[in-house]
Every structure is written in C-alpha cells, then in structure tokens.
C-alpha cells in the first residue's frame, strides 16, 4: 500500500463516518419534515431534537476532515471536483448552513409559526444537502470530472452533475439517510420506552429500507449504462462488498420486523459502510475516473506524512472524548428526561 493509498484510506474512513453518523442526522431531518402537523408531530420532533442535539456538530466535523485531507493529500482532485461541481457543492454548503441554523433557531423561538419556519428550514435542507452531495459523488463516479484546469472546464455548469449517476447518487443519499435516521430514532424511542414512536419509526425504517433496496437494484442498471468503469469494478473486485451490503440491508429489515432494534441499527450501519467501501473498491485505483490515478493525484510525500502524523496524534486527543460523547448519548445520559 503506497503512502497516498494510506491517506486515501484514512479519508475514506472519514467519508464512512460522515455517511453513517451525519447520515443518520440528515435522516432525522427527513422525518422531521414528514412528522405531520404541529400538534401531531410534536413528540416525534422532540425525539428528533433530543437525538441530534448533543452530537450533530461533532458528526458534521467528519466532512471537514474529508475536505482538508482531500485538498492536502490530492490537491489536483480537490481543485477539479470543487470547480467543476461547484453548483451542487454550493447548494450543499448553503444547505449545511441553513440546516444548522434552522435546527438551533427552532428551539428558543416561540409560536407555531416561527417554529414551523425554522423547522422547515432545518428539515428541507436535511434533504437538499445529502441529495446534492450524492449528486457530487455521482458526477465523480461516472467520470464527469476531468482533471485538467482550464481546458477541462465544461461549457455548461449543469452537465457534470445532472447525469443519471448523479441523480442516482442523490436519490440514494436521501433514501439511505432516511433509512439510517429512522433506524437510529427507533432505537432512541425504544430506549425511552415510547412504544408509539418506536412503532412509528420501525414502520418508517422498514419502508425506507425497502425503497433504498429498490433504488440500489434500479441503480445497477443505471451504472452499467452511465458509469461502465464503476460497474465493472462493482461486479468484479467490489462484488463481495456489494453482496455484503445487500445481505446487511435485508438483515436490517428482518431485524426491524422482529423488533430487534439495536441489532437492526448495526446491520443498517454495515449496509451503508459496505456501499461506501464498495464504491471505493469499484473505482480503485482512480480518483477521477479515466483521468487521474491515486498516485497521479497525490500531493508531496512530506505533506502526506506530516498530515498522517498530525491526524494520528489528533486522534489520540479527540477519539476518547468523542467515544464518551457518543456513548453517553447512546445511553440517553445527555438528553433523556427520565434519567436526570
């Protein structure tokens, strides 16, 4: 494994953790939007607020890690992706801003109208953001981002991210986050012994899981046509991960059916992790499909080394408190009313 591959693997760990943890947070926002009217949805929204409150900012930081590792480790790839796909990235960035603001603004304001306004801002951007990030992923995966600086710039800013693979990526991101979000919320509701909400999110999780499965099935056909290189990888080297994802996904739905929520959450996470790594394995060893390999995109050895050392030292600093935060939160010690 070359140094550049190690850096890319570290970055991909970041992508994975972002997809899982921030993904579940985005999914919670998705369900916030579909929680019904102000009165009927009050409990559901309160659960969502408690579930996100202490952790959403930490979960968001994985994205920042991914960005800085990408530009330090693979400057040419970052510059190409960001400039060619600037439209979906700008929308996603605006979505990130409005989502965070909507979330923290909703709690302190009074009156249904204000709460609804900020809540809608939070919930709508929880769907918009993953969709456009997924569209970015689709643009990269289908080889629509050329590496060249000026000559590579497409004449029209919409073409690189409106292809079939981008639409698939966006849709998949939304349904997957909705699935993860519902599963995580079902676990939280069960821990809080709220039978009604547990059942509600169980049904939502099963529904979203089935939709996600259908999108993946349909997606295979899209990739075969629109992203042939990735398709070859997915049906070759990455096949075990693809199968693993399918098995975990089906397993998660079965476990939800049997009301074994904690196990279902693990299976759902595994399904998402397998998709993320399946993409990586399928596209390996290209960073920009058809244009830029991992070693070709890599920055200087001294910078990769320095960054790895810093991330390793940094991990010692942030992993223990992060584990503490996530663990306390998973046990309801930071938000559950009954356990004060």
């Amino acid at each position, binding site marked *: 494994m070359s140094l550049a591959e190690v850096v890319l693997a570290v970055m991909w760990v970041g992508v994975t953790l972002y997809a899982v943890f921030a993904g579940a947070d985005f999914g919670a926002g998705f369900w916030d939007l579909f929680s019904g009217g102000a009165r009927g949805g009050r409990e559901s929204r309160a659960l969502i607020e408690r579930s996100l*409150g202490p952790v959403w900012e930490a979960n968001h930081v994985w994205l920042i890690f991914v960005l*800085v590792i990408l530009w330090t480790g693979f400057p040419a790839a*970052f510059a190409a992706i960001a400039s060619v796909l600037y439209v979906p990235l700008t929308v996603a960035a605006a979505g990130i801003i409005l989502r965070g603001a909507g979330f923290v603004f909703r709690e302190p304001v009074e009156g249904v109208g204000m709460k609804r306004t900020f809540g809608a801002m939070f919930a709508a951007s929880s769907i918009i953001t993953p969709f456009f990030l997924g569209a970015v992923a689709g643009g990269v995966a289908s080889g629509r981002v050329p590496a060249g600086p000026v000559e590579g710039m497409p004449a029209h800013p919409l073409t690189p991210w409106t292809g079939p693979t981008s639409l698939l990526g966006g849709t998949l991101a939304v349904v997957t986050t909705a699935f993860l979000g519902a599963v995580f919320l079902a676990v939280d509701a069960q821990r809080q012994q709220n039978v009604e909400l547990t059942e509600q999110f169980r049904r939502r999780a099963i529904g979203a899981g089935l939709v996600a499965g259908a999108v993946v099935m349909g997606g295979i056909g899209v990739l075969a046509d629109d992203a042939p290189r990735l398709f070859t990888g997915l049906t070759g080297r990455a096949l075990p991960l693809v199968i693993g994802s399918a098995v975990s996904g089906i397993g998660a739905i079965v476990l939800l059916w049997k009301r074994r929520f904690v196990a279902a959450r693990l299976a759902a996470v595994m399904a998402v992790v397998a998709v993320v790594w399946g993409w990586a394995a399928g596209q390996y060893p290209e960073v920009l499909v058809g244009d830029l390999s991992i070693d070709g995109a890599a920055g200087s050895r001294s910078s990769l080394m320095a960054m790895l050392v810093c991330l390793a030292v940094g991990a010692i600093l942030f992993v223990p408190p992060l584990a503490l935060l996530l663990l306390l939160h998973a046990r309801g010690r930071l938000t559950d009313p009954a356990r004060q």
Partner: protein
Amino acid sequence: MQAVAPFLAAATQPDLWAARQQMALSLGWHIVIACFGVGFPALVVLAEGLAIRRNDPVAMALARRWSKVLTVLFAIGAVSGTILSFELGILWPGLMRTFGDVWGLPFAIEGIAFFVEAIFVGLYLYGWDRFPPKVHLLTGIPIVIAGVASAWFVVTANAWMNQPQGFDVAKYRAVGVVTDIDPWKAMFNPATPPQTTHMVLAAFMVAGFGTAAVYAASMLRGRRGRYQRLAFGLAFAMAAIVTPVQIGVGDWAARFLAERQPVKFAALEGLKETTTRAPLNIGGLYIDGEVRYGLEVPGALSWLAYRDTDAQVAGLNEVPVSEQPPVAVVRTAFQVMVGVGTGLLLLSAWFGLYWWRRRRLPSSRVFLWAAVAAGPGAALALEAGWVATEVGRQPWIVYGVMKVQDAVTTAPGIRFGYFALIAVYSAMTVGTVFVLRRLASVPLPPDIEAAP
C-alpha cells in the same frame, strides 16, 4: 435556453469580481461569529467558575443563560465555516491545485482542534445538571483551548499567503513547478507569530466588547442589578485587559509589514514614493496618489516603522503599478481599524482607572453609551483589519508568487452562486439577530433580577 445564456456568456472569462465578493461575504460573515466562538466560551466558563467558587446563584444564572447563547453562536459559526472549505476549491482551484499540499497541514490540525471543540460543546451544553458541577465546568475548558487553537492554526494558513515558504519559491517563480515541499516550514512562516497573535486577541476583544454592549444597553434602560453588572463587568474586563496588549501587537504587526511586505505597508499608510523621514498622516483621504485633509506628523511614520525618525520607508513606487493594491480602500480600512482601536484603548483605560480608584464599574451614561458603541465598533475594527490585510496583499493571492487572477475559477456562471449566497446570508443574519433577541427577552427568575 434564454435562462442559461448568461452562464454561457460568462464561460470565456473568469469572473474575478464575483469570486472575490463571494469569498469576502462568506469570510466576513464567518469571522465575526468565529470570534464569538473563540472568545465567548471563556466568558461562559468564567461565569460558571465564579458561580461554583462563590456559590453564587446570580453568576450561575448568567452562565446558564450564556450557555444557551453559546449553543446558537457555536452552531452557526460551525456551519458558516464549512462553506469556506468548499469555496477554497470552488472559487480558487488554481491556488488549491498548485499549493493544496503546501499549506493544507494547518487546516488539518485546525480540523482536529475544531473536532475537540465540537465534542466538548456537546458535552458542556447538554451536561448541565447531569454531571457534577465541577466536572461540568471541566468539560468547558477544552472548548476554550480548542477554540483558540483552531483560530491559531487557521490563521497560520493566511499568514502563509502573506509570507509563502516551505517550497522552492525561486524555482516556482521561474518554471511554475512546486518542489521541495516542507509543510511545517510553510505553517511556521515569518508572518505566523504577529498575525496569529493579532487575530486571537481580536477574537477576545470582539466577544468581550460585543457581549458587554448588550448589558450596557440594558443598564442604560435602568436594569442595573447585580446580574447585569456582573455580565457587563466580566465581558468588558476581558476585552479591556486584552486591548492594550493588542495595541502593542498591532505595532509589532505593522513593523513586521514594513520589513517583510513593504508594498502593503505603503498602501496602509498611503505612501506613494519611497521617503526618508516619512510623515504619518492621520485621517484624511487618499486621492490621486496623495493623502489630503489628513493631519501630518513629520518623521512619525519612519519612527513607527523603524524607531528612527530619519529612516527610509519604501513607497508604492518600489513595484510596478500592476503590482500595487488599491490604496484608497486599504488605507481607509487601516485608518478605521487604528482609529476604533485607539478609541477602545481609551475606553479600556477609563474602565481600568475607574475600577482601580473606586473598586466598582463606571456607570455614567456617557461611559455606558460608549460601551454600547464599542460592541459594533470592535466588530467594525475586525472587519476593517481584514480588509486592510487581504486587499493590501492584492494583486497577489500568495504574496509575490501567485496572482489572484491565476487562482480564480474559470467556471461559468459563478455570480449566480454569489447572488444565492447573499440571500442565504441575509436570512441567516436576520434569523440570528431575531433568535438572540428572543433569548435575551426571556425574563430572569425574579430573585435573580432583583439581586441588588
């Protein structure tokens, strides 16, 4: 197809105006909130520490109230910072493609610091009544340290843009290839010490004066209980202690520029020609290559730059016109920063002397009105300082190495992204002000409000 015509029309030429405006909007917005992210946690922790130590319910009420404000400020600081990472690539791909690996390291370290901050913010904000008081206080301390650290590291990256090193500069200038990269050397460049210190202190000033202004306004409306006095005193004292140090650091930063970035220094002072015994012009306007209507102090600029009234100070004419920044903007911004900074220094001295002589807060209406003005004033000085340093570096994005026009994206239609972001930031500004006012209007418990 009518609607996409502007996209295509813009495709041939990079839209430097839109890229600059968008970056300035995002950075200018984030930087004020980020200052609160750095300086405000210290105030919250200070209030809680006092409350625990003295078993003081008023200080505790204050710490809890401020903690709610921190929830909002930290969140919008975090999300408004994220877009900057996107924009470095969206708007300046030439810079990132060429130098991403040279100056990326401090951003990675900043990411770690920010992670620590976000984790402990989660623990602190949701840990009230769930951890024992002293443990809860301890979870606040990493927020303060990590906040300062993340500001420090990210400013080293900006310092590198002013003093690029950590690669073979001569070779890059000659053939445009980056070699011999040393990211540590890039991070610890000569501009790092003055710039990082100047920025971190500025953050404490903005947070301190900004917070104090809210309570000064409250006191002017007749609410002069212990709660308001404590809040005002803590916040104003933090800023007032930092301010004199900042003036010294500002002098250091300016002398550094005279030495290492003489063109920027000349632009700050509006010095067109290289001059011995250079005068300092206070106030006035830079029109047609000279400062008019200013107060001229002979030899003072030479003294400020080199501690010698006869020293020679380099003027803008040392470089061709194409490498000179827009002087009027830079000089005006610098004058505003120095002017407001001087005012804040006087106000801090007033506060300090009053406290020293009478052991209580100055409470005259004149002082309180000045303290109200000091809040937005500190933010104005911050923005002016950033305009001065950023515009003063033009036309370079990396000083002496890469021009802005060679870094900007060639993607068509970016001004539509800029217009969309104007709407987003307008909504954010309105929302933030509205929510903070809402938080401030929640009545205090009667016993806290009545505490004399």
